[in-house]
C-alpha cells in the first residue's frame, strides 16, 4: 500500500454557509496501480488530488503516504495539471530542468535525465521551443516529462488531457499507458471522461457531487490493450453510466416498464 486516505472531509467556507467538497473519502492505493477517479465537474475530484499533493489540507481525516503523514508538497508525489502549468519564459529543456535544479541534481546527471525524458515523451528536436510554439498535446507531454524527471513515487494527473481534442486525447492516453508500462509508476488519474477511465484504469472510483463522495468502485476486468469498440468495453461504460444516473443507458423495455 503506497497511499492511504482515511475518512477525508473537506469543507470550504463561503460567506455564511460552508460547502462540503469532500465527504468521508477513504481510498487505498496499491503500488504500481493505475487508479482512475471519474466524476462530473464539481464532485471534488481535483480537490482530492490537491489534498494528496499536499497543496491543501483536509478539514479532517488522514493521508498516509508510505506509512507516514505528509508534511507538505513533495516531488515524490508529482502532479500534472490540466493546462498553463509550463513556464512560458522557459524552453522545453529549461522547463524540465527547473525541478532538477531545485532538487540540486548535478548538471551532468541533469542533462542525462532531461535527454531521457524528452525521448520518453517523443519530443526530441523540440528542446529549444517555447511553450507557445507547441501544440496542446505537446505541452502536456512536456509537463509529463517534467514531472517524471523528478522520479515521483506517485504520478497524480488532474484531467491532463481534458483541454485536448478527442483525437489527440486518445493518442495521449495510449502514450501514457506505454510510458506507464515502461516506467512502472503508481498513477492516480482524475478525469470526467468515462471512456478515458475505462481505457486507462486498473480500478475506477466513481464520484458524484454535492457533497463530493465516492459512489462506486469498479475493478476493471478488461484485458489490455483495450478496444473501445469491444462489446465488454461498451458494457462496462454502460454500467458506469448507470451508477452515475445517466438515463440513456436504460433499454427501451426498461423505460416502458417504468412508465
Amino acid at each position: 500500500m503506497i497511499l492511504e486516505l482515511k475518512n477525508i472531509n473537506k469543507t470550504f467556507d463561503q460567506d455564511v454557509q460552508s460547502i462540503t467538497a469532500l465527504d468521508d473519502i477513504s481510498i487505498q492505493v496499491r503500488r504500481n496501480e493505475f487508479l482512475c477517479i471519474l466524476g462530473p465537474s464539481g464532485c471534488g475530484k481535483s480537490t482530492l488530488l490537491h489534498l494528496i499533493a499536499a497543496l491543501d489540507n483536509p478539514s479532517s481525516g488522514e493521508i498516509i503516504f508510505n506509512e507516514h503523514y505528509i508534511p507538505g508538497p513533495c516531488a515524490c508525489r508529482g502532479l500534472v495539471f490540466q493546462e498553463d502549468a509550463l513556464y512560458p519564459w522557459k524552453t522545453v529543456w529549461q522547463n524540465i530542468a527547473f525541478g532538477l535544479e531545485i532538487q540540486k541534481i548535478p548538471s551532468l546527471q541533469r542533462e542525462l535525465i532531461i535527454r531521457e525524458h524528452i525521448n520518453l515523451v517523443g519530443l526530441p528536436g523540440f528542446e529549444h521551443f517555447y511553450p507557445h510554439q507547441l501544440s496542446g498535446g505537446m505541452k502536456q507531454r512536456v509537463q509529463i516529462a517534467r514531472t517524471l524527471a523528478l522520479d515521483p513515487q506517485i504520478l497524480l494527473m488532474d484531467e491532463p488531457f481534458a483541454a485536448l481534442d478527442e483525437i489527440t486525447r486518445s493518442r495521449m492516453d495510449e502514450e501514457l499507458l506505454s510510458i506507464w508500462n515502461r516506467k512502472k509508476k503508481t498513477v492516480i488519474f482524475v478525469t470526467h471522461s468515462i471512456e478515458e477511465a475505462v481505457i486507462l484504469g486498473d480500478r475506477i472510483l466513481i464520484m458524484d457531487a454535492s457533497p463530493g463522495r465516492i459512489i462506486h468502485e469498479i475493478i476493471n476486468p478488461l484485458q489490455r490493450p483495450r478496444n473501445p469498440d469491444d462489446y465488454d468495453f461498451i458494457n462496462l461504460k454502460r454500467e458506469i453510466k448507470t451508477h452515475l444516473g445517466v438515463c440513456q443507458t436504460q433499454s427501451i423495455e426498461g423505460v416502458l416498464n417504468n412508465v
Partner: protein
Amino acid sequence: MNKHHKKRSISDRINPKHLSLFQTMGTLIILLTIWLLTAIFVKGIRGISFPMPWEVAGRLWTLIKGQLIYNRSLHAHLLSSLWRWGLGYSLAVVLGLIAGLTLGICHKLRQSILPIITLIQMIPGLAWIPIALLLFGIGNTATIFMIFIMGFAPIVLNTAVGIQAIPPVQIKAAQIMGANKRTLFFRVLFPSALGSILTGLRIGMAGAWRVLIAAEMIVGMGVGLGYMIIQSRWSLDYESAFIAMGIILFLGLIIEKTLFGMLEARLPYASHQRNKIGVL
C-alpha cells in the same frame, strides 16, 4: 510542377529588409507632407508664416555650429533635460520596482495601497506643479520630483499586476517541485511578471519624458528643452521651438528603440502575442 500558385500580396513580394526601409521612408514622407500642408494651410488662411522644414533645418545648423540660444548652447539645453530625466526616471524605476514587487507578493498591503497608486496615476503631470513647488520650491528638485512621480505610478501598478497575473498552477507546480519562497520569487514570480514590468517601464518612460518638458516650461531653471520651447514662443523664434520638439521626439525614439528594444529581445516568448495580420 505545382501550378497552384497562391496569389501573393504586394508586401509578400518585397524583401523583408527593403520592406522595413520602405515603411520607415513612408512614415517620414507622411510626416513631411502633413507638415508642409499645415504650413501652406496656416499661411493661406491665417496669413502667418509657419516654419518650413528647410527653415528649421537651417536654424538647426546654426545652433549645431555653436550659436547660443537663451544664453546656452543647444547641447547644454539637451544635456540638462537628459540629466533631469535620467535622475527622476532612475529613481522611479528603482523605487517603483521595489514597491511593485512588494505589493505583488503581499496581498494585504496591495489591497490598501494599490488604489492610492491608481489615483496617483490618474493625476495629469502638470497638476503636480503646485505640489512640487510647495514641497521643493522653484528649481531642479521640483522638476525631478514631477518626473519621478509620473514614472513611478505606472511602474508600480504594472509590476504588481504582472506578479498577480501568474496562473496559480505555475506556483503550485513549483511548490511540488520543491521550490522554497526565495526560488518561487526569483525564478517564478519575477520572470513571469517581466513582460508586464516592461510595459510599466515603457509607460513610465513616456510619462516622465512628457512631464519633463512641461515642468521645464514652468518651474524650469532657465535651461532645458522645455525652457527652450517656451522661450521661443515669447521671442517668436518658432524654428527653435520646432528644433526642441524634434530633439525630444528623436531622443524618445532612441530610448524606446535601444533600451526597450534590447530588453524585449531578451523576452522572445512575450512578443508572440503581437500578430501580423493585414489585408494587403
